[in-house]
C-alpha cells in the first residue's frame, strides 16, 4: 500500500473514530442506539457553514459554537426522544425508534432552512496548505482531523475515567437504580452524556464537511452505517474500541479499494463486521458481559 493510501486510510479512519466516539458513549451509558447522531452531525455542519459564510465568522469561532450547539441538540434529543420513555420495559426499542423520528425531523428542518442542495464553505475558509509525508500529499486539514480524533479520545477518556462526572456516568451505565440509591443525579448524568456525545458528533460533522467541502441534509447517512459498524467492531460502549476500530475500518476500506476495487469496499467491511460478530460477539474491546439483566 502506498504512502498516499495510508494517509487516505488514516484520514477516513479519523472521521469514523470521531463519529463513533460519541455514538458509543451513549450506547455505553444507556444501552440504546441514538440514531439521530448522524442528524446532529449534519446540523452542526450547517451551523458552522452558516456562521462562516453568512455571518463571516472565523472558523476558530464557528467550530466551537457549532460544537456547543450540537451538544445542546443532544440535550433536546435526550429530553424529547429518550427521557419520556425511560423506565419502560421496551425503552431500548422505543428509544431507537423515537431517535429515528428525531433524525427525520432534524433532516426536515435542515431541508426547510438550507434547502436540498449541497452547500459549501467559501474557498478561502481554510488555507489549503499541503504537506509531503510518506511520499504522498496530505492537507493540513486532514492532519487536523486525525489529530482531533485522537485528542478527543484522550479528553473523553480522562473525563470518563478521572472526573466526578465520569464516575457518575459510569455508575449510571452500570445500574441506574444503584446509582440513584448512592445519590447520583441520574437524569443529570445522562443529560451530560448526551451533551458530550452530541458535541463530539457535531465536531465530527464540521470536520467532515470541511474536508469534503460538502454539506447536505443527507450527509450523515453514509457515515451512520459505518459508525454503527465501528462501534460493533470495537465493542459496544468501548471508547478505545471505537477509536481503534475507526482507524482499522478506514485503513481496511482503502486497502480493499486499492487492491480489489471500490465495488468491494462495503462488502469486505461488513463481512469483517459479520465475522467479528460471529467469532467475538462483544467486539474487539468490549467488556465481557458479567451481568445478564
Amino acid at each position, binding site marked *: 500500500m502506498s504512502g498516499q493510501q495510508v494517509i487516505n486510510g488514516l484520514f477516513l479512519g479519523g472521521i469514523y473514530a470521531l463519529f463513533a466516539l460519541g455514538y458509543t458513549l451513549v450506547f455505553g451509558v444507556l444501552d440504546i442506539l441514538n440514531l439521530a447522531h448522524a442528524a446532529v452531525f449534519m446540523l452542526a455542519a450547517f451551523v458552522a457553514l452558516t456562521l462562516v459564510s453568512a455571518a463571516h465568522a472565523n472558523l476558530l469561532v464557528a467550530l466551537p459554537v457549532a460544537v456547543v450547539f450540537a451538544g445542546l441538540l443532544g440535550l433536546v434529543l435526550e429530553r424529547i426522544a429518550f427521557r419520556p420513555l425511560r423506565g419502560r420495559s421496551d425503552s431500548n426499542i422505543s428509544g431507537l425508534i423515537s431517535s429515528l423520528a428525531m433524525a427525520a425531523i432534524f433532516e426536515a428542518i435542515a431541508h426547510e432552512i438550507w434547502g436540498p*442542495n449541497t452547500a459549501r464553505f467559501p474557498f478561502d475558509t481554510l488555507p489549503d496548505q*499541503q504537506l509531503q509525508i510518506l511520499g*504522498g*500529499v496530505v492537507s493540513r486539514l486532514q492532519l487536523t482531523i486525525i489529530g482531533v480524533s485522537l485528542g478527543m479520545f484522550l479528553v473523553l477518556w480522562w473525563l470518563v475515567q478521572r472526573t466526578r462526572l465520569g464516575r457518575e456516568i459510569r455508575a449510571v451505565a452500570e445500574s441506574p437504580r444503584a446509582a440513584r440509591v448512592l445519590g447520583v443525579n441520574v437524569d443529570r448524568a445522562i443529560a451530560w452524556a448526551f451533551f458530550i456525545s452530541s458535541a463530539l458528533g457535531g465536531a465530527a460533522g464540521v470536520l467532515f464537511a470541511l474536508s469534503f467541502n460538502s454539506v447536505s441534509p*443527507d450527509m450523515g447517512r453514509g457515515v451512520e452505517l459505518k459508525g454503527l459498524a465501528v462501534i460493533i467492531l470495537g465493542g459496544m460502549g468501548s471508547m478505545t474500541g471505537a477509536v481503534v476500530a475507526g482507524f482499522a475500518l478506514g485503513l481496511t476500506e482503502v486497502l480493499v479499494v486499492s487492491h480489489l476495487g*471500490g*465495488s468491494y469496499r462495503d462488502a469486505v467491511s461488513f463481512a469483517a463486521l459479520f465475522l467479528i460478530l460471529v467469532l467475538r460477539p462483544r467486539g474487539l474491546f468490549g467488556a465481557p458481559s458479567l451481568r445478564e439483566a
Partner: protein
Amino acid sequence: MRFPVRSFLAALAALAFAGPALAQQTVRIGAALSMTGPAAAYGANQKTGILAAIDEVNGSGALKGVKLEAVIEDDASTKEQGIAVFQKLINQSKVAAIIGPTLSNTAFATNPLAQAAKVPVVAVSNTAPKGITDIGDSIWRVSLTEGQVIPGALKTLQAKLGFKKAAVLYGNDDAFTKAGYDVMKAALADLKIQVLGEQTFAKPDRDYNAQLTSLLGTKPDILVVSALIENASGIVAQARQLGWKGPIFGGNGFNNPVLMKNAGPAAEGVYVGTAWNRASTDEANTKFLALMKSRGVDPDQFCAQAYTGVLVIAEAIKQAGTKGGRDDVKAGFAKVKGLATPLGKFSFLPNRDGDHTPAIQVVKDGKFQILQ
C-alpha cells in the same frame, strides 16, 4: 325502484372523456422533477425551463384555443417518490403528457405506469443509452443519450489533446452513471485508448481519495469519470488535491454550472460532451438565452432541454390539429420534424429518441466554453 347505477356511471364516464374536447381548453402538462435529493441541482433548472417555455407558448398564441398549464411535482430523486408522483399526475391531475422524471434510474420505475395508462412521456434529461424509449410507444425522449454524445466528444477531444492512456472512475449503483460508463468503455476501445485502471464509487460516498490514488498511480493521460453532479464535484476537487493536473472528461452528469460553484478552481480543465451548444447563434437559442436573462437565470443544458420538451409538446398539439388529448399529443409527436429549438433543429428518430447535433465544452475561467 332500482337506481340505474351502471348507466349513471357510464354517463359520468362519457362526460369525463368528453371534457377535454371542448373548444377553449386548458391542457395540463405534468412534470416529475428532482427538486430534492441528490439530483436537486438538475430539477431546479428544469423547472425554470418548463415554466419559461409554457409562458412563451401561451404568450405567443401559437396554440389557438389551448392554454398550457404546468403541474410540477418533486420526485425526490427516488424511484418510490417518482412512482407516487406519476400516479398522481396520471390519475388526479389528468395531465395530457408528463415531462420527466429527472433521472434515468427513476424513469425505469415510473415510465411503465405511464405506458400502461397510455399517457405520453417526454424524457428531457434521461440519457441512459438503452431501455428508456424501449418501455413502450408512449415514451419519447428529447435528451440525447450518452451513446449519442460521448463517443463524438471523446473523439474530438483526443484529436485536440492526443491522449493514449486513460483511467476510469464511475458510480456503479445508478442506472445513469453505469450506462455512461458502458458507453465510455466502448468509445475508449473504439479510439484504441488503453484503459489502465477502473474504479467505482456509490452515490452516498464523499471520499474518493482511495480510488483516485489508485487510479492516478497508474499514470494515465486522462481521467474519465461517469458521475452525478454532487459526486462529480467531489471527485474533481479531490483529484486536483491529490496533485492531478491533467484533463478530466466527464459524462452528462458533469453538465451543470454547479460543478464550478462546488469545485471552484479545481474544475478548470474538465471536459464535458453536451447536447446543448450554448454558443450557438441560431435564432431559437438566442431567443432562449434572452428569455432566461430577463428572468435572471443562468441556463444550463438541463434548462434548455426542459424548455425544448415543452416546445415539442406544443408542436405535437399543433400537429394534432390543436387538440390536447393524450392520444392527440402522442400522434402529434410523430409529426415533429426539424422544429427550431435552443438545441438546434429537433426531430424524433423512428425509435422515439431525440435527434440533433451535440457539442463539447471545457471549463475555462470558471465557465463552460464550447470547444471550437
